[in-house]
């Protein structure tokens, strides 16, 4: 439980601070919603994080939430807090564009299980958020709805594909947002926008009613301000769903109860391969400083060799490409001009990969995961890396549509996040500093399968001793 609030701008409260304050009667859901709407009105013209803002429906829902509390009705863990979702979570009867021209008018007939669970927990749905077209870029470009802009510095990338999710939480337009993560699409916008993002273990959260990209690697998770927010959010949305047979039957823990601040004896491994290739000094410095914070709380840190990363990165490069290519084949044949240039270009490469290599990548996934766990978690509890190796790039320097020569800079953005999708491990990205241009830097912490509680405990301990996650973008 959070302490009583004292905020002049209610929109600056974290999701759990706001929910707890509403539950105690210190603030109303309506007042909180109006504070968020005022910020959206003032700043989203520049940031472009929303695709559809359901202003009046949200007002009605907030009023009903306040009435329910006044009547003494039982309150859900997210009662009255404004949230929004990447525009690829289906709500029956509402357009879900998937950030695309092709599905600009698509109206689903089902509602995503995660949206139903958020509704049941009392969250107020504020609308749909900008995203990479079909969740297929790591930068935040969108040719159809306009690029999403980083609230810390507008010409810079938000990260993608959950661009609007990262930007809207950073700008304090909403207290939490749903993102999805197939190669880093939660963790990258979290890192680049200076918020907290959690990719849960593969199969932890239902994907029913969620636009598919890659059935092997798609994940559902939150972008929020704090590890505590992520813990509460995950408990609401996690758990087996009969509508998604791939969702795990693993019991859902009380993740928030695990946030004790005690990380004495926690053993953290830092892989020496891959994650630091071509890294910027300012990023490495912030990463090392973050490790010192964790060590000061009693964690130990050791540099290790992880030979299996070579297989992880090679096989990981195949899965989503092939699966994405298959899903989009009909439109790539019939409507190729309706995709943005970078997306059709990326999808095209997927058709070149031989089927036997795709099957090999799938079949080796289990053995490679076991090998990685032996190497990385045999003597350690967590793996730490920077979320992005470099300083945050600009939208211009990663724009393939403007110049194909930007291809390598574009692809490099997700280099540190992709491996954990092949491995299926739970990973959080938390803010750990700012670069020399005032853009956020992220720390990535990964754990064993279903070790979300331990991952979040470390993230929360870090946030008790730092204030990077509290800083507000200078939107004016």
């Amino acid at each position, binding site marked *: 439980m959070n302490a009583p609030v004292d905020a002049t701008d209610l929109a600056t409260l974290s999701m759990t601070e706001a929910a707890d304050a509403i539950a105690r009667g210190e603030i109303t859901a309506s007042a909180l919603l109006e504070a968020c709407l005022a910020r959206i009105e003032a700043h989203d013209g520049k940031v472009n994080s929303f695709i559809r803002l359901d202003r009046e429906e949200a007002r009605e829902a907030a009023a009903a939430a306040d009435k329910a509390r006044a009547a003494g009705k039982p309150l859900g863990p997210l009662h009255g807090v404004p949230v929004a979702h990447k525009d690829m979570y289906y709500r029956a009867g509402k357009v879900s564009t998937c950030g695309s021209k092709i599905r600009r008018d698509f109206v689903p007939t089902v509602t995503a299980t995660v949206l139903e669970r958020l509704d049941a927990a009392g969250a107020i749905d504020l609308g749909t958020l900008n995203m990479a077209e079909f969740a297929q870029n790591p930068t935040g470009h969108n040719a159809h709805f306009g690029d999403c802009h980083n609230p810390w510095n507008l010409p810079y990338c938000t990260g993608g594909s959950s661009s609007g999710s990262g930007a809207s939480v950073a700008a304090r337009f909403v207290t939490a947002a749903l993102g999805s993560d197939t190669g880093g699409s939660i963790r990258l916008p979290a890192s680049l926008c200076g918020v907290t993002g959690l990719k849960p273990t593969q199969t932890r959260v239902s994907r029913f009613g969620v636009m598919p990209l890659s059935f092997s690697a798609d994940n559902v998770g939150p972008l929020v301000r704090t590890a505590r927010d992520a813990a509460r959010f995950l408990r609401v949305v996690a758990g087996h769903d009969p509508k998604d047979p791939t969702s795990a039957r693993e019991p859902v823990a009380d993740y928030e109860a695990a946030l004790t601040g005690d990380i004495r004896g926690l053993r953290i491994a830092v892989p020496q391969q891959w994650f630091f290739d071509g890294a910027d000094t300012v990023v490495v410095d912030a990463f090392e400083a973050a490790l010192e914070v964790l060590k000061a709380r009693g964690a130990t840190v050791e540099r290790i060799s992880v030979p299996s990363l070579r297989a992880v990165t090679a096989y990981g490069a195949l899965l989503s490409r092939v699966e994405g290519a298959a899903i989009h084949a009909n439109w790539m044949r019939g409507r190729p001009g309706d995709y943005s240039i970078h997306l059709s270009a990326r999808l095209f490469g997927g058709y070149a990969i031989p089927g036997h290599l795709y099957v090999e990548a799938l*079949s080796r*996934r289990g053995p490679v995961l076991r090998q990685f766990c032996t190497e990385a*978690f045999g003597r350690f509890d967590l793996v730490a890396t920077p979320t992005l190796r470099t300083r945050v790039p600009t939208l211009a320097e990663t724009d393939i549509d403007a110049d194909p020569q930007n291809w390598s800079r574009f692809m490099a953005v997700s280099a540190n996040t992709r491996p954990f999708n092949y491995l299926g491990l739970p990973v959080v990205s938390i803010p750990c500093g700012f670069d020399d241009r005032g853009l956020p830097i992220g720390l990535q912490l990964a754990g064993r399968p279903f070790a979300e509680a331990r991952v979040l405990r470390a993230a929360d301990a870090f946030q008790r001793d730092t204030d990077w996650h509290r800083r507000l973008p200078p939107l004016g």
Partner: protein
Amino acid sequence: MESDLVQPTIERIRRWSGVECPNAAARHGLSDFPPLLAELEALRGTLVFEDEPSSFEAALQAEKEKTP
């Protein structure tokens, strides 16, 4: 300089998938393949006859945290 892999790959995709090369960026993307091919070459021989995709879910369970 474009890799000599590009044009034959474009033709193979057209034949097998019926998808045309959409733009110059797609050609550029195919030029990105040789390093990936080299990495996959290095992994040849690691697939065991009995390996199968369902081993991943089993590994997630087997490798999960014992004392959260």
